[in-house]
């Protein structure tokens, strides 16, 4: 880059400063190219993922021959090709690994386009390193700068959490295709994978809507236990006892269970009742599927009911034999790119949709929803990566106050702008991460919440900690949880009340890795919603943000939470505003289950069936008075145009 004399110092900073790029995916590849061409000399790139063929339409540092290899490693090699003198180090690892804490302290400006954002946010705050955060989805993109003490941190704004569905909707009264898809994924786990108490697929007899009188619910619960003892035996064991007989399985799930649901007549007073399927009937009346010699993708065809019956049978056979091959105690992990697994979910979900009077969906569409696929193209990532560098240069030039949050829209706005910059907000005084003494109040039942649940669901999942230490403020400094392995494991299954924790108790939680201390105020309650384990006081978990009224166009952007059990697609269905989802393009590829990444939840009982996670955030464009006033001044000026 040719540089005139005013920017010589900037040029020097470029070549001496160290940059950390978290994620070598869509944005990462473009960013690496930009950094190297701009003159950055010391770059470290980290990504735990490997290359997939679906990456190749945009992650241009990778070619077909690289499929299966480490993204970080190949990205480094490709970038070195066009700038052999750059000093690039690649790490095929997770950013959650605490080794990185040491590296971050050396860096001036990490550019960070990736998941695990909470953790990175805290590390950068701890080390006082400016963080440039970005994400893309489809045509939309966003870049922002986080600087400790000057701007909001990543967690200053409460993020709308991933929409989750109540158990009874999944198990009893699905009304949208997504409910059926989630059910099908639960079913996969119950049959072939890791069984999870939060992923029940059988009719929920404890559904509060089902009973005319409360005492009936109890009666039904006991009655069902006598019904062939099916409820007492795990679904997997039952299936195994039938030899994973697809027809028996079909009749249980799509006939018997549905007939059972029909007996819960109150559910169907105001809803269209489901219609059970019978395998034999369907087989007898099956007509050969008309082949539409499509110019479409094979996956985009929607089969008939019998077609899905056959797909169900075929995939059950394949999956059960895979399971047998793996041996005793084996489990399969659902993966959208594993054909029989995807076939199974497609078939099961569609059969259920048909039962509940919904239009069936093609495998292509089911895959989008089940696999949380975010469409992605090269150009959006290219634009965002360019903006990242521009913001980075401002930081290096010592002009952080000129940094902005920039939104990339799909179409130009009323002012004909495709890129909309907004002034950065100052830190939120109540932020439970970057405020000087972060504090939060959490509501739960002290008699029913275990120490382990506190650690895993609340502190790690909800509050994004990695290795929390918990001390009770009881005057004695009782240690409830120690991050050192083995020290407090005996406490795990005890209830919090066993330690004298009650309404009004305070817990001091430290995560030394993140240099983060949080004071948790306990609010005891016996009245939480069905399926809800805890609630953070002062936030509205499932509400989408209302668009600000002073904007020409409602432009609320949120980062989607990538948890596969609760895909992001339906969360904004009821909104009239232009809410859209932005997720880093790297996240969809983070399929490794080796690292648990934090994901905010509304506290409902659920387990991530695979580790695709991400964060949610709400950013509203805020053109403050300052910048719009400056723009307004122009309107009064005369324009002199010469001919």
């Amino acid at each position: 880059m040719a540089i005139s004399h005013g920017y010589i110092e900037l040029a020097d900073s470029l070549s001496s400063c160290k940059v950390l790029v978290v994620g070598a995916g869509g944005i990462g590849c473009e960013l690496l190219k930009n950094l190297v061409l701009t003159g950055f000399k010391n770059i470290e790139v980290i990504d735990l993922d490997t290359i997939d063929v679906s990456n190749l339409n945009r992650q241009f540092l990778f070619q077909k021959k690289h499929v299966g290899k480490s993204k970080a490693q190949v990205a480094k090699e490709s970038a070195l090709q066009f700038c052999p003198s750059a000093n690039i180090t690649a790490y095929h690892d997770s950013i959650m690994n605490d080794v990185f804490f040491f590296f971050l302290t050396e860096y001036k400006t990490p550019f960070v386009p990736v998941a695990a954002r909470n953790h990175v946010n805290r590390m950068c705050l701890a080390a006082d390193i400016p963080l440039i955060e970005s994400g893309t989805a489809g045509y939309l993109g966003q870049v922002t700068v986080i600087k400790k003490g000057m701007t909001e941190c990543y967690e200053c704004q409460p993020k709308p959490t991933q929409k989750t569905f109540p158990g009874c909707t999944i198990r009893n009264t699905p009304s949208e295709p997504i409910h059926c898809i989630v059910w099908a994924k639960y079913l996969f786990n119950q049959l072939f994978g890791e069984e999870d108490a939060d992923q029940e697929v059988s009719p929920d007899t404890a559904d509060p809507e089902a009973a005319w009188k409360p005492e009936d619910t109890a009666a039904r619960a006991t009655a069902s236990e006598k019904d062939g003892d099916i409820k007492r035996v795990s679904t997997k064991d039952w299936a195994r006892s039938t030899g994973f007989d697809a027809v028996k399985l079909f009749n249980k799930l799509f006939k018997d269970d549905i007939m059972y649901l029909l007996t819960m007549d109150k559910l169907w007073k105001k809803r269209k009742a489901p219609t059970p399927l019978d395998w034999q009937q369907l087989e007898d009346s099956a007509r050969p599927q008309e082949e539409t010699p499509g110019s479409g993708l094979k996956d985009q065809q929607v089969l008939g009911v019998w077609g899905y019956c056959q797909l169900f049978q075929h995939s059950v056979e394949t999956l059960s034999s895979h399971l047998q091959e793996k041996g005793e105690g084996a489990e399969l992990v659902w993966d959208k790119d594993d054909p029989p697994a995807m076939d199974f979910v497609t078939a099961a979900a569609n059969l259920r949709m048909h039962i509940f009077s919904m239009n069936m969906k093609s495998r292509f569409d089911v895959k989008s929803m089940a696999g949380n696929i975010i469409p992605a193209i090269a150009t959006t990532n290219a634009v965002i990566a360019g903006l990242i560098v521009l913001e980075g240069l401002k930081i290096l030039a010592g002009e952080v106050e000129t940094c902005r949050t920039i939104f990339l829209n799909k179409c130009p706005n009323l002012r004909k702008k495709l890129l909309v910059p907004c002034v950065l907000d100052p830190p939120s005084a109540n932020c439970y991460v970057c405020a000087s003494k972060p504090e939060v109040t959490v509501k739960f039942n002290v008699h029913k919440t275990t120490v382990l649940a506190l650690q895993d669901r609340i502190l790690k999942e909800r509050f994004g900690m990695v290795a929390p230490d918990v001390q009770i403020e009881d005057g004695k400094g009782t240690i409830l949880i120690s991050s050192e392995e083995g020290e407090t494991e005996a406490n795990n299954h005890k209830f919090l009340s066993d330690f004298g924790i009650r309404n009004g108790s305070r817990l001091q939680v430290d995560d030394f890795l993140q240099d983060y201390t949080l004071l948790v105020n306990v609010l005891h309650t016996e009245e939480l919603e069905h399926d809800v384990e805890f609630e953070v006081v002062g936030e509205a978990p499932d509400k989408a943000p209302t668009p600000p009224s002073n904007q020409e166009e409602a432009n609320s952007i949120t980062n989607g939470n990538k948890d596969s059990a609760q895909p992001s697609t339906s969360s904004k269905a009821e909104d009239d505003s232009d809410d859209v989802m932005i997720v880093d393009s790297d996240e969809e590829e983070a399929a490794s289950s080796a690292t648990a990444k934090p994901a905010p939840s509304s506290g409902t009982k659920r387990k991530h069936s695979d580790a695709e996670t991400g964060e949610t955030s709400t950013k509203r464009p805020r053109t403050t008075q300052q910048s719009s006033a400056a723009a307004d001044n122009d309107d009064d000026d005369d324009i002199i145009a010469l001919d």
Partner: protein
Amino acid sequence: MIDTIEKEDPVISEEEAAQYDRQIRLWGLDAQKRLRGSRVLLAGLGGLGAEVAKNLILAGVKGLTLLDHEQVSEESCRAQFLVPVTAQGQNRAKASLERAQNLNPMVEVHADPDRVEDKPDDFFLQFDAVCLIGCSRDLMVRVDQLCSQRNIKVFCGDVYGYYGYMFCNLGQEHNYVEEKLKVVKPTRDSNDGPEAKKAKVDLNETTMVKKTASFCTLKEALEVDWTSEKAKAGLKRTPVDYFLLHGNEKCQFIKQVKKYKCFSVIYVILDSKPLAGFFCVENSFAGIRPMSPPSTKFHGHGHAAFA
């Protein structure tokens, strides 16, 4: 051109479906088929040209012709990532060919070392779209005139440091479709769920709406009389880059840049007379609009970063 595209092989291979999956999910299968039936010309393989080449190749066009008569200089390697550091002295288009092709073997990439100005009219007519990067105004006007009449899409662009422009002419009658979410009217017998009691946007079903847009030619755009009342009124919303393009050959276009808080002011000098002064907000191409020039007593030192 649309007819020709539809005669192309309608069947997408497994390999293509897998590789283009994420973009097919965004712009649809039809759009992907059109892409893969189209041939594009790209003239100018500097930094901007390389980016455009990458984006088009990754998108999966049928063919891309890289046209550039320039030789690779030391600076070329730092400006773009397709040219190997060892290629100095070679033709820029040819030097970019290998890496461009490797981006996507399914695209037919060609390199042509000729001058774009020397190409006869029918050279351009073999393409479905033409991209002219860093070309002279006369050339752009000529090609634009030639192509838009035959429904060949024209794109022009260039960059100057932090600033740049893109012009496109998709024809007088450009037909396209817009995907809109279906509004589900409340019916008793809705097939998509038993609870459709109110009209709502159905995220599961979309409909394609046909639309037409009309574009002006480059010649028309350049010949706007900015002294007219109507033009003056529109000036505030006219990006400064337009004027950069306008004056590109005649003027010493970035004469002075003065930093004023977080704004940069550029004076476009056309034949030694100030044409207009322009506010540039941030470096993010966010809002660039005209303002009046300061008094004649102004002196300033200027900095300009050029690519």
